[in-house]
């Protein structure tokens, strides 16, 4: 080996080593082409506005869907378990309600979820480098309203909470709670600022963005709720404040762009879903025809409606009068997939309605059940028709047989008589993931052609004629509010059940439905599975379905509407002056538009009130707003659980413990993430 060679080699190898060693540590920096730095983006208006938009995410999902939908309504005098069911006994019956109950956890998570984004948006606003001052003010005001709304849900359900209004980089893992008055003060302050700075028409004309009327409406609601906590402000009780805000909105409706439909039927009319005049604060649904459908940031699409419907399969089977299953995800394009019958109305709620005059009954509850055809869908899609809509008119038509008559106790004379479909659905394929829309039209009575030309469009395809005519031949079953005699039933060629007969007579409060058991007095016993179906969230219009999933609907959901303001005004009147006549004046506005015939609005029918009691206020809330996220808060602020559950809902009263059930348990998952769970407490659970 020659010296020279070795030298050369060593030098070469050392050269390599030197290169390796000289790879400096600064080269270990990350290259990140997929995200942006906060500083660059959020100091500019456009970026900040985009950050602000995300604050709305919390509205769409749990807070308008089943978890909060049930937590805000059940466990009250309005709702109970359907036959044989014990699902959600935790909140429907206050049984086994613990820190691990998932629906309460969902509400907690989602109400909190956007507060941090609100805080940060508000915090960053003063440092923006560009942007129109008025736009910034509007967006800050929107954000404050949202923050106030999220906190109002939290404080109502959970009581004392950590009040977090800034986005601090250091996250304290030992959070402490603020008092209820402190939280209300913050909410009121946010809402007042929102009211002052919000426009009457929404920014960018975007119907999701909140406006002045929302701030004022929420102020009335929050004052009322805070009043229940005994709060006052500037020497005035919150009840006074609530009435002031309600009156201000009622008296200046036009100024604030608020309105009340003259006819209750308009409130839930399909055509009025997207741009509802009566709504003060909406959760704007997804538009399946828009590409925006696919960029939803919500946790889930609302499935609230189906929890209030019975499972028809269980009552009828699918072999005779009822043609297409509702238990299946791919079957019934009119009702959807009704596999979650969790909530049924109490006898009290049913009895609140004087259905003879009050059209809110059939606009709130479906009691006549039908089959549907897909004539339009077949016509427009040919062989490509999706199977749920692939229903010929004749396939939707039932011919009563003697066996059916026997099974359901129908007059055997009607054997051979036909029951036709009431609705007919079209099938339109919306964008990408939204898939099919099933838009219904109605077959007029007496027209049996099955021809598309005879179809008519109605305001709300879920509303059936009331009362159901004995000769009606488009519905196979009917739950009669007015008790029908055997003789009357014998005139009807469809299954009839008196609603009263669905209730277990051993429970005088009317909170127990009969079990589906042999000898329950119903023919057949499985009809015990039926109950009036609350339909407010069942949006059947073009753009209202999530076609691939029959459990979800895409319509807008009203977080607050004008009618509630009248109710708050009446309630606050009772709490302040106690002037029954004045309160009645507020309620009469709602009662009047609910009359089936204008002439029915008089004292004689009972539709007009001359003076109101607090019970009238409770009843009116029930008739007008049942299901609409208010009842639990109403009973809470009036400390009415004990008395009203005792009277109207024995099953809930049996386990209701006033010492702890006025607030919900703090979720286990949260307690498990903080370091001071014991000090923070579970709210007594």
């Amino acid at each position, binding site marked *: 080996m020659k*010296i020279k060679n*070795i030298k050369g*080699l*060593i030098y070469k*190898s*050392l050269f*390599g*080593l030197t290169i390796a060693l000289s790879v400096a*540590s600064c*080269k*270990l920096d*990350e290259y*990140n082409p*997929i*995200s942006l730095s906060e500083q660059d983006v959020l100091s500019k208006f456009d970026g900040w506005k*985009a*950050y602000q*938009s995300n604050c*709305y995410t*919390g509205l769409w999902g749990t807070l308008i869907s089943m978890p909060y939908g049930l937590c805000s309504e059940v466990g009250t005098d309005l709702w109970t378990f359907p036959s044989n069911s014990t699902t959600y006994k935790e909140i429907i019956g206050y049984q*086994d309600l*613990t820190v691990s*109950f998932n629906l309460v956890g969902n509400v907690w998570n989602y109400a*909190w979820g956007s507060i*941090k984004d609100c805080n940060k948006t508000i915090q960053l606003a003063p440092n923006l480098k560009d942007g129109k001052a008025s736009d910034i003010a509007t967006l800050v005001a929107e954000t404050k309203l949202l923050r106030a709304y999220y906190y109002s849900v939290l404080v109502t359900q959970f009581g004392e909470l950590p009040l977090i209004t800034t986005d601090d980089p250091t*996250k304290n*893992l*030992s*959070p402490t709670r603020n008092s209820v008055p402190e939280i209300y003060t913050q909410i009121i302050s946010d809402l007042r600022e929102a009211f002052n700075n919000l426009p009457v028409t*929404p920014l960018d004309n*975007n*119907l999701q963005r909140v406006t002045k009327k929302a701030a004022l409406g929420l102020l009335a609601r929050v004052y009322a709720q805070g009043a229940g906590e005994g709060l006052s402000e500037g020497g005035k009780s919150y009840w006074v404040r609530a009435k002031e805000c309600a009156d201000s909105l009622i008296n200046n409706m036009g100024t604030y762009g608020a309105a009340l439909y003259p006819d209750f039927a308009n409130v839930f009319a399909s055509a009025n879903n997207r741009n509802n005049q009566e709504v003060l604060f909406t959760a704007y649904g*997804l538009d399946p025809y*828009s590409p*925006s*459908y696919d960029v*939803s*940031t919500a*946790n889930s699409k609302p499935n609230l409606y189906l929890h209030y419907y019975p499972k028809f399969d*269980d009552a009828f089977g*699918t*072999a*005779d009068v009822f043609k297409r299953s509702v238990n*299946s*995800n*791919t079957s019934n394009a009119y009702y959807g*997939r009704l596999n979650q019958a969790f909530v049924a109305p109490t006898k009290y709620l049913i009895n609140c309605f004087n259905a003879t005059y009050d059209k809110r009954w059939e606009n709130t509850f479906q009691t006549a059940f039908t089959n549907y055809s897909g004539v339009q869908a077949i016509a427009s899609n040919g062989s490509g028709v*999706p199977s749920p809509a692939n229903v010929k008119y004749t396939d939707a038509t039932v011919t009563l047989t003697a066996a059916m008559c026997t099974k359901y106790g129908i007059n055997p004379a009607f054997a051979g008589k036909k029951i036709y479909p009431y609705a007919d659905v079209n099938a339109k*394929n919306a964008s*990408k*993931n939204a*898939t*099919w829309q099933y838009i219904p039209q109605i077959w007029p009575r007496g027209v049996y052609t099955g021809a598309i030309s005879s179809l008519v469009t109605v305001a709300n395809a879920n509303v059936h004629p009331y009362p159901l005519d004995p000769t009606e031949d488009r519905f196979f079953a009917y739950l009669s509010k007015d008790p029908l005699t055997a003789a009357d039933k014998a005139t009807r060629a469809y299954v009839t059940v008196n609603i009263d007969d669905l209730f277990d007579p051993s429970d005088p409060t009317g909170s127990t439905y009969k*079990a*589906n058991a*042999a000898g329950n007095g119903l023919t057949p016993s*499985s009809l015990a599975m039926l109950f009036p179906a609350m339909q407010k969230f069942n949006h059947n219009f073009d753009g209202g379905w999530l076609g691939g999933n029959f459990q979800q609907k895409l319509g807008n959901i009203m977080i607050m509407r004008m009618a509630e303001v009248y109710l708050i005004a009446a309630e606050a009147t009772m709490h302040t002056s106690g002037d029954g006549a004045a309160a009645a004046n507020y309620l009469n506005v709602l009662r009047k538009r609910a009359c089936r015939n204008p002439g029915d609005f008089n004292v004689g029918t009972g539709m007009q009130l001359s003076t109101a009691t607090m019970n009238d206020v409770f009843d009116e809330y029930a008739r007008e707003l049942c299901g609409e996220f208010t009842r639990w808060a109403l009973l809470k602020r009036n400390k009415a659980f004990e008395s009203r559950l005792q009277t109207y809902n024995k099953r809930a009263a049996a386990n209701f413990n006033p010492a702890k059930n006025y607030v919900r348990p703090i979720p286990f998952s949260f307690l498990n*993430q903080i*370091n001071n769970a*014991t000090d923070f407490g579970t709210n007594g659970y």
Partner: protein
Amino acid sequence: MPWHYLADRLPDCGGGFNGTITKRLLRAMKLTIFFIAVAIFSAHAEGTAQNITLSGKDLPLKQVFSAIEKQTGYVIFNNKRDLDETKTVTITANDLPLKDVLDLILKDQPLEYSIRGKTIVLSRKVPIIDPDLPEARVPVTGTVVDAKGNPLENVSIVIKGKNKVGTTTNSSGEFRIEANQGDVLVFSIIGYLEQEVTVEKNTSLSIALNPIDAKLEEVVVIGYGTQKRRDLTGAVVTVKPDQITARPGPNPMESLQGRVAGLDITRSSGQPGAPLTIQLRGNRSFTASGTPLFIINGLPGDYTTLNPYDIESIEVLKDASSTAVYGSAGSNGVIIITTKSGKAGKLAIDFNTYYGNNGWSVTPKMRTGEDYLQTKRDAYSYVWDAANSQWTTTGALWQSPADDEKIFGTQRYALYQQGQFADWAKLFLQKSAHTQNYSLGVSGGTEKTKGYISFNYTNEKGQYVGDDYKLFSTTMRIDHKVRNFVSVGANLTASYVDRNKAQDKLENALVTDPLVKPYNDDGTLNTNLGNNVYNLLLNQQYGVYGNVDNNLKLYLNPYIEIRPLKGLSYLSRLSTFLTFNNTYRFDGIGSVSYTYANANIAKAQVDQNRAIGYQWENIVTYNFKVKRDHAFTVTGITTWYHNQNTNTTMNQSNIVSNNFKWYKFTGDANTTSTSSYTMSKTLGFIGRLNYAYLGKYLFSATIRRDGSSVLYRDNRWDNFPAVSAGWRISDESFMEGTKSWLNSLKVRVGWGVTGTAKIDPYSSVANLESNTMSLGGVTVPIYRNSQYLTNPDLGWEKSYNTNLGMDASFLNNRIDMSLDLYNTKTKGVIYGVTAPIIYGQYTSSQQYKTNINVCETQNRGIELALNTRNIVTNDFNWTSAIAFSYNKEKILALTGGVANNIANGDNNQYSLTIGQPVNSFRNFRLDGIWQLGQEKDAAAFGKRPGDIHVDVPGMTRLAEGVYSKSDATGAINYYYTDLAAAQKFNGALTAAKNTYSVSANDYQIVGHNNPSWTMGFQNSFSYRNWELSVYSYFRWGQTISYNMMGWYQPSGFATNASPSRTIPKYFNYWTPNNPSNDFPVMNYLEGPGTLTGFSGLNYVDGSFFKIKNITLGYNMPRELIKKLSLEKFRVYGTITNPLVVTKSPLLKQYDPEMNGSLEYPLTKQIVVGLNMTF
């Protein structure tokens, strides 16, 4: 210290050094940082005399030279072995000149000397061929074989005392040498006892060499180098090629299950190409993957597509002293795979193939027919009468068989009467799933250039129609000596996987309503099986479905190695990889997804992942000896790694024809695409010193400094040190007496630090994500914070491992044992702490997180590997191997606060609980079922007989129906329904009743998913040409969450259940007439939502024993092989998974290795194969 001084003092560095301690060497060494170590150990010689005074009788030469060194200050260079062969000398020298003394003592020795400067170099005398006696030399021929009679190649044969005369055997074990009668031939080869044979008249020899303790001499691959096993100080296990190929299959790691103590390997899915779960010595990390680091030919690579027949050896580095050289990536252990390389000499062709069948899965037998009817009746036969606290038949919907129609519903009753029960397992799983493999390896080369090339093709079919795994792979390796001191080479591994994946929903199907027709009356497929229940047969229709993986992987590793001086080598190697993992999915018209999930919309998706990266390493190694008994190896390494991943996903919906599959994306509103990118870099500097004194005192020290881009910039660098030592006790003179039964004994002790920082890129800096949302029905842009909130203090997660080991062999190496004890504490475990929801929600289902180093875990364990040769005779051999490991894992600390029991894992299925293993299950602990007679006790919990009896921690039963429990504040609460009974314990009670509501607060640890111990046990028998091996495996102490248990949903038997369900036949449920403790009451009103404690049903003891495989092989007799000019010809048959025995009676017809899942059951496999070498 002056360099030239050292130069003069440098001792012998082994033979072949020419003896000149040159300035050249010095210059080279001057430039290395390792020199100091040399200096420390170099002796300082005394004296300068040139004359020697010495006398003695029969002095060993060694002793004489010592004296000479002492007296003269000269240094003597020699080869140790040369001195061993010398005779003793008798000398009387009084002040004799050095040269004379040397002449005298070397007179009759095979050595000569030369003096250069102050160094005496001893070397072997060049043999003098005596020209006078040529006729005396005769050719001696013969063959050398091993104990089994197989020919041994490359056996060195020399004539004793004439070292330069010698030859080696050829590949048939034959040799030819010229020798004189009376000469002694010495046969030697590594791994065998040297044998001497005196040449007699018979010049045809047949020699059989006996193996010595081959294990000790074998070369073990360690991190960035190799070592002889005898010199190892760490816990390293080597797996041999025959073990790797023992179980026929494409994934080489699968055969290692149970073979390496401490390495837990499981496979939970029977799908071809399904990944394995590999875990070494327990879980240390919470979020980081526990998979060991795989090093293939020195660099990170992909083992899953590596041809098992290409593997020369697999080394598993278990303790930190072995893995600390891998620093931040070494925590989970390192598995080093070395592929075969070419050998100089004859071309060798290796051909292996097998063919067989996968299938015969055992799945739970479900209730159909009469069993189904009975369950349905049970579900409707009883009604709970709350007023009287009893189950009654009064009012029940089923009273007599006349009510059957009522409980079935008209349509289903008609089906029942027709006996329309579907056996979904039978319908979905095919039996004829073939598997085949062909592997061809060719190697050969010259002294200068060696090459190896192999091709492999595997085609494994799954049990679902259309499910298969095709693997094409090749390995090419070339090593070339450019000069004596320069080698270059490259290794190329390429693989292409074409994998079709079926939609596997077997579990779902099994529990599906059996009372349906898979086919309609008109022969079309029935799509209406109930909700979320898929008729998978839909996907078997032609052209409706595709889910294909096309993965191309290329690894190219070129290297250059320079050995400028004896003992010094510099290796620079680059590992580049390029992988394209593409998945194409098509759910066409008529497919399962089209029909059920996608609402009659045909969809396609193309998912393309490209990863590119390289690792560049420079390794300098220097071996040298100081004073001939001090052996050093010093290693210096730099390693730089950079990888980049790009992902593109494209979606197409509303595809109008199945013809288009994923080939015609329209680029309109029905098409969407997204892309993403991640990268990471690491840089490490490593220094290592290995030192051995007299070959029996061993020491090793390593330090690695590592940096990674994923950590916050101020905190990127850290150090990972390790030290270890070994003592070969059996080499000590005081152990002479034990030689008869103890062949070797070594103890090892090691300590080291390793790390992991497998956190996601970009998670240590705060960023904004750009997105869009639907606001008021229109798309608006949004920004939101990225999920991980910055933690500037985040550093490496570090494992501190101590390992004590002992290796011993006994009784003429009949028993070979290796025992390791370890303790690993992992500090600063990285945990993505969830920011409580009050600090915001990242997306609808995820909260913000921050990675922090606050947790601590501990793993302690014992590993024992035992190899025994039980019977060794000429014809019959029986050997056994046991690999046992026991690991105890514990979380020592969590987030630093009081938070405990934090949900963790992919689906939050595990709980992080202090004092428990990482993957622990925390749920309701069940105390069976409330029985008749326990009405009052059950009522205190609001329960009835037939309900699940949850064991509530802290609950005391005071009397029948009266319980007490203290709450968080210490107050005692009483639970009862009978006030009078409770007042006996507390007179102050007034409430009429107070029942206890069981909640998540009552969760307890119900088990852990990692086994307590595992043991592999292999027995191999050979009789003449036959061989039989039976390999069994125990995995014990793990709890599994068996999903099937959770399908016990009585409400699934309701008339209009949504959907209807069935349960396994062996599920023994409670009815008033059957007081089972396994499952709660069968009543159609009960389901997961109403049966408190239901989620606790899932947890079952998953301990099992299985016979993993049995192989019967036959080797063609050597004579026949020779005739066919083959080297080897073996045929074999293997049966895999023939027997599974579970501990829990709740696991029937189920292989718990699936870990609770049942979507794709594990198969049994029968193959026949052929191994052939030309």
